[in-house]
């Protein structure tokens, strides 16, 4: 009984840590954008988490884990199970932990909205994403859907959380188009630098610690202290990602760019999310290193493609989310896959191409679903209500246009002040 309660306690601690990751996202998004949007960015993260929580309670959990079919669950709506059998996790503990993942995916999706989307667009999309996009992919992989049947490995959510969020962000970024001033007429791009690198560094630290809950508590128990191994892999990949991104930026551009390095740490964390329970520590280092290098090139790629992604959500969570998922197809060991009755070993451990194939299938199908459904939702929203604020509102900043006051009132001149005749 004590062990079961400790399992429950550990997952609740994980829940707290993952919820605190929203604080990391607040700092990350605010720091990556300009002062005039800081209050808006910070505030919207909290209220969309509110919307996401209510939707997850009402229908999200049921769509993922309810009795249903290969595509979606269809029971356990308006969740309120007070039972506890004394075995495994209490339903409420499990529910709370699952809810946090849905909120993280939603927050990642909103990275694609930054600095130009209407407040109302956040409200509506928070409801629709939390009901129709995230739960479906989560059901496929974690809720007994068709990909779970194939043995797809995603320990803590490289695909379910990160890729799904990033695909919605990609759809939003494409429909919203670049921010004013991002691209010049000759096609060159401008650096619309974020206003606070200290926020970014603190964001990464907060997310990093939160990730110990994200990955570590995804063991759902403390019995064999496996969470320690998972956390070790998480730490190594994040470290390798930070170092790799810093060096690749330094070598290629001549500048040891701070935001790139910080995104490298996050890339390491995203990359190891799927594989943290399946691979050896040396492989975690490789997975993190490759994630760190990929994030640098991916950011340059999106920039060149004129896809304006201020938070680098597409690169950190999308590109690297894909890599993280596929990485188990190479690096999963026999004892941690077959031994744990979760899929097959990867290619480098004598496995066939089968697991790699399953991972690729998971990425393609989940990514495609998340992108297409998000795209349709956002396109319809754009037609019906408009997603983007007006040019004037964007220039004056969303703090003022959407909320009526600046996040940094003392540092921005009041536009109402008379400027001449």
């Amino acid at each position, binding site marked *: 009984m004590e062990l079961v309660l400790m399992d429950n306690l550990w997952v609740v601690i994980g829940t707290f840590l993952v919820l605190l990751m929203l604080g990391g996202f607040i700092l990350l998004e605010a720091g990556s954008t300009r002062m005039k949007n800081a209050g808006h960015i910070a505030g919207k993260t909290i209220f969309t988490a509110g919307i996401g929580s209510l939707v997850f309670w009402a229908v999200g959990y049921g769509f993922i884990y309810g009795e249903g079919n290969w595509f979606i669950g269809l029971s356990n709506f308006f969740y309120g199970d007070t039972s506890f059998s004394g075995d495994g996790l209490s339903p409420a503990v499990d529910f709370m932990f699952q809810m946090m993942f849905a909120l993280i995916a939603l927050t990642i999706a909103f990275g694609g909205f930054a600095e130009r989307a209407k407040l109302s667009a956040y409200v509506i999309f928070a409801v629709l994403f939390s009901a129709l996009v995230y739960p479906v992919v989560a059901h496929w992989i974690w809720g007994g859907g068709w990909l779970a049947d194939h043995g797809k490995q995603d320990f803590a959510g490289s695909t379910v959380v990160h890729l799904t969020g990033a695909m919605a962000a990609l759809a939003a970024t494409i429909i919203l188009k670049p921010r004013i001033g991002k691209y*010049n007429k000759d096609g*060159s*791009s*401008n*650096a619309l630098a974020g206003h606070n690198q200290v926020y970014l560094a603190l964001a990464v630290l907060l997310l990093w610690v939160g990730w110990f809950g994200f990955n570590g508590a995804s063991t759902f128990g403390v019995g064999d202290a496996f969470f320690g191994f998972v956390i070790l892999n998480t730490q190594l990949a994040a470290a390798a990602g930070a170092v790799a991104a810093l060096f690749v930026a*330094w070598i*290629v*551009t001549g500048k040891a760019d701070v935001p790139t390095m910080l995104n490298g740490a996050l890339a390491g964390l995203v990359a190891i999310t799927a594989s943290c329970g399946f691979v050896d520590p040396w492989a975690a280092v490789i997975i993190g290193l490759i994630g760190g290098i990929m994030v640098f090139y991916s950011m340059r790629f999106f920039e060149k493609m004129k896809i304006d992604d201020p938070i680098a959500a597409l690169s950190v969570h999308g590109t690297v989310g894909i890599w993280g998922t596929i990485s188990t197809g190479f690096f999963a060991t026999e004892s941690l896959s077959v031994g744990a009755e979760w899929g097959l070993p990867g290619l480098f451990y004598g496995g066939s191409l089968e697991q790699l194939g399953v991972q690729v299938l998971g990425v393609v199908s989940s990514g495609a679903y998340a992108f297409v459904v998000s795209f349709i939702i956002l396109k319809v929203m754009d037609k019906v209500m408009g997603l983007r604020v007006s040019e004037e509102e964007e220039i004056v900043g969303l703090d003022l246009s959407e909320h009526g006051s600046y996040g940094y009132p003392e540092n921005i001149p009041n536009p109402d002040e008379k400027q001449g005749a």
Partner: protein
Amino acid sequence: MHNKQVVRQIKGIDETLNNYTEINEWRQDKIVRVMTDHQKLNELHDSIIENTVKVAMKKVQSELGNPPAPFAFFLMGSAGRFEQSVLSDQDHGIIYQSHDESCQSYFLTLGAEITNGLSETGYELCDGQVMASNPLWCKSIRQWEEQIVDWMEDSSWKSLRHFSTFFDSRVMFGETSFLTEIKNYAFMILNEQPRLYKRLVENVDFVKKGIGVFGQLLPEQYGEESGAIKLKQTTFFPYVNALRLLALKENILEPSTLKRFEQLPVSLQSFQSYEKDFRRLLDFRLQHRKHAQSYKDVHLIQINSLNREEKQTLKQLMKKGYKLFDETKTIIEKECSTW
């Protein structure tokens, strides 16, 4: 002396140029013929500036009478170093010989008229306000000497930057001895306080990187300049700064980098080998930027406009410049430590 004679030959037409518009038209006509020849191009610039100053002088004289004291109008920056490209901004100052403070208003008016004239004859205003219309750059000999002492005593980033700007100078009009006197005064102070050499090195030690670890060129990443190399910051500065430091150390009055190379003492003969690299750099800039549309443009080289060989040349010129600067730094730091 050689330069002056050539300038006179090119000029020969100053009598016909009576206003800024005529000078500007004359400039447009002449400049296309010399835009790839460093020497002739700079002689032409001298000629344009000299004629502009003469017109400005006449204007001020007709309104305020003759100058109240002997004076020197001097050039700084790339014009001072005889290293202008097709387009350039203006950097200049005035030294007058008088203790009478009231003289300043006359010379400031003259400075303002020259500034206005030069802007009409094709020289952009200086962003940093290094112009004779600014009281900081228009002073009596005594005030200049005090200014030099202040800059040296302060020895902050900004004041040493001002001093370096001042030191790359030559008189274009008026009493050449005034400037020489002030430069010699600066040498005296430097010789008394050799720690200043070290500060002057530190002041220009940061060089914008032009080459990466793998020897690749590092162009600008963002904005309308993306894909371009900033030639001035990445390639010119190491040469110009190194030779200025050596000139200060060896008490060489000459402002031009090429002339500074020539006048290096025998003990620094090894530095002579970099002279040909600097000449190549001057030619490289003129060859590639002769069609520049603005002063900012003059120093921007799009790397995709360069062929393989030209990229190699540019990289070599950068590497040589960095090496020259490093060697200069070593020599100065070594000698400072023995003083």
